[in-house]
């Protein structure tokens, strides 16, 4: 069955179904329609890797932020001469696009030091590509000193954006941007609330598409589409009572078809802790403060759920356990990209160092993977083992 057949015309989505179809297609486009329209109108675009980049600064600079992905690029022939194969495949595929100058819709890139593979994008970009690249240093701790350090980093980022985009980021513009992005977060949290229902109105795969698509288009357009989606889903009947309520934990999963495979076994992904998922919108940025940069710091480092880049582990485990309880999760699937040290150790810790109140299945993958059969089999076995334990 072609899931997309259920959806209508997506030229101007007016229903929840149409929005979902639109977002699905956006996931597999090099650049979204909305982004290209913005670009054609003379708008600037700044690419970024990883959710530790506060997009508000880009928005306040009058540009649109787009999280760089590589779903259109199954090869790494050019990238492999820059990156050895003991590195993350997501970064290799993305770098392959970059070095082939296929990210021609961006004016520059922001590269956080969030992991060993991604931070070297900046070193390569600044040597081999003509557009600007800014390295954003992300601390590994939520200390007062580390937050102060990160605030200084945001000053430097602000300077870079102003210089390269020829603009000034005033407090007023930044506050407006924060409000805009907070609205996005609120709408996404509303969407996720609907998934707490016994029969959620949206699948995990579709939800992933919703979140991923939002990282590639102007937030005003995205919010308008989200409003349509949420309003529609609030009235929609649930999909079905699933065989099992699942949670997915992991890193840069940006491929809804991966979750289609998972859900095809009868389970339903009802929540997540993903880089394109709940971690990025769980906490808002404080709007009513005089120090807006500090507000961004607080949101990024102190308030929101962290990925393994920011130590230590217990708060991350608590977040996962909290979601298990809130969403009534039966089983957790922890996925990680091969060669990823951060999530490799995280999956070990989640499996061996804490006793979650739901069983956990760990799965390795590559950014592009043909091994869907293997994934199906493992998920099937996982569901059966949960059912067996329940009996």
């Amino acid at each position: 069955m072609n899931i997309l057949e259920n959806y209508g015309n997506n030229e101007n989505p007016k229903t929840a179904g149409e929005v979902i179809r639109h977002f699905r297609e956006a996931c597999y486009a090099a650049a979204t329609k909305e982004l290209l329209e913005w670009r054609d109108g003379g708008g600037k675009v700044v690419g970024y890797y990883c959710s530790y980049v506060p997009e508000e600064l880009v928005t306040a600079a009058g540009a649109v932020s787009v999280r760089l992905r590589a779903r259109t690029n199954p090869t790494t022939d050019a990238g492999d001469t820059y990156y050895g194969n003991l590195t993350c495949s997501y970064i290799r595929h993305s770098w392959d696009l970059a070095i082939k100058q296929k990210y021609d819709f961006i004016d520059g890139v922001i590269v956080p030091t969030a992991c060993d593979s991604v931070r070297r994008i900046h070193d390569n970009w600044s040597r081999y590509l003509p557009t600007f690249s800014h390295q954003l240093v992300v601390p590994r701790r939520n200390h007062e000193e580390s937050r102060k350090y990160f605030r200084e980093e945001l000053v430097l980022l602000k300077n870079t954006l102003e210089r390269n985009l020829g603009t000034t980021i005033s407090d007023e513009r930044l506050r407006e941007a924060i409000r805009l992005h907070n609205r996005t977060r609120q709408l996404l949290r509303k969407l996720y609330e609907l998934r707490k229902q016994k029969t959620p109105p949206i699948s995990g795969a579709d939800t992933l598409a919703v979140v991923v698509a939002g990282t590639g288009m102007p937030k005003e357009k995205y919010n308008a589409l989200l409003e349509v989606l949420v309003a529609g889903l609030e009235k929609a009947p649930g999909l079905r009572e699933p065989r099992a309520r699942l949670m997915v934990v992991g890193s840069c999963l940006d491929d809804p078809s991966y979750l289609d495979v998972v859900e095809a076994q009868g389970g339903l992904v009802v929540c997540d802790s993903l880089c394109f998922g709940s971690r990025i919108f769980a906490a808002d940025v404080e709007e009513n403060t005089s120090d807006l940069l500090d507000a961004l710091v607080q949101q990024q480092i102190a308030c929101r759920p962290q990925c393994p880049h920011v130590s230590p582990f217990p708060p991350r485990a608590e977040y996962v356990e909290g979601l298990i309880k809130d969403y009534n999760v039966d089983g957790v699937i922890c996925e990680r990209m091969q060669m990823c040290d951060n999530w490799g150790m995280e999956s070990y810790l989640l499996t061996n160092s804490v006793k979650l109140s739901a069983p956990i299945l760990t799965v390795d993958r590559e950014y592009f993977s043909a091994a869907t059969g293997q994934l199906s089999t493992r998920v099937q076995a996982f569901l059966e083992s949960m059912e067996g334990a329940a009996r």
Partner: protein
Amino acid sequence: MEYLDSCIREIEAYIWALASSGRQVREWKPNARSVPGPMNHESNQLVLARDTAVELGRSNVGSCFGVLWTSSSELVEDGRIRLVGPDLGELIGQSVAFCQVLILQGQDIPVTDNSFLIASSSMTDGLPGVMSRISRSGIWCRISYASIDLGLCFAALGRKELDNWRSRIPAIERAEVLFLTSGADDLVPLQGISALAEGVIRSQQIEKGRQRGYDLTCSLASCAGCEHISACAAITKSVERENMKPAKREEGTGR
């Protein structure tokens, strides 16, 4: 490339202050072509401890190395070699604090090019009886008895340095060098002045960063009260001029 001009002026002022306070400051004129000392022999570049007459800049004694550059010709006296403190022949048997600062002038000195770095790292190649190592903590040299017996002095050392730099980087139009051997206390202000140009490696990183729009040295959230504000303004202007150049995108990939 004016952002190091204030540093260059500060060095000049400091040398004048040292001279005024009674330090021996020697200067060799730019047009002096004949300098004593061995030149251009085969050398293994190693000077063993037993053969060392003078040790300069050992790390736990004190050391400073800097390379500054400018596009302003009035700031650099071409070929000038200056020495504050004793010359090599007056330091036999000693291990002293040492500073070497090179000041280069040219319109297009490739400070972000690897050749700049490469050129900096073997400046005394071909000068027998001299072993040097440059690093971010400074410069460490050993001068052999044999070469001092043959008349090696800072004038010769300086001349060799300048010749090597010019031959490896054609864009250099003017160059001068300063040496200081008058003691660790005298070194300290120079270390401070040359903080922005702390070794060739560090300078190159900063320049690369500036051309890419970020500041490796700035840690302040606000410029108010910052002592480097005038230098920073010059840096910003320099980067803005870079950004106004035709977009590299049209020229294709790479540098």
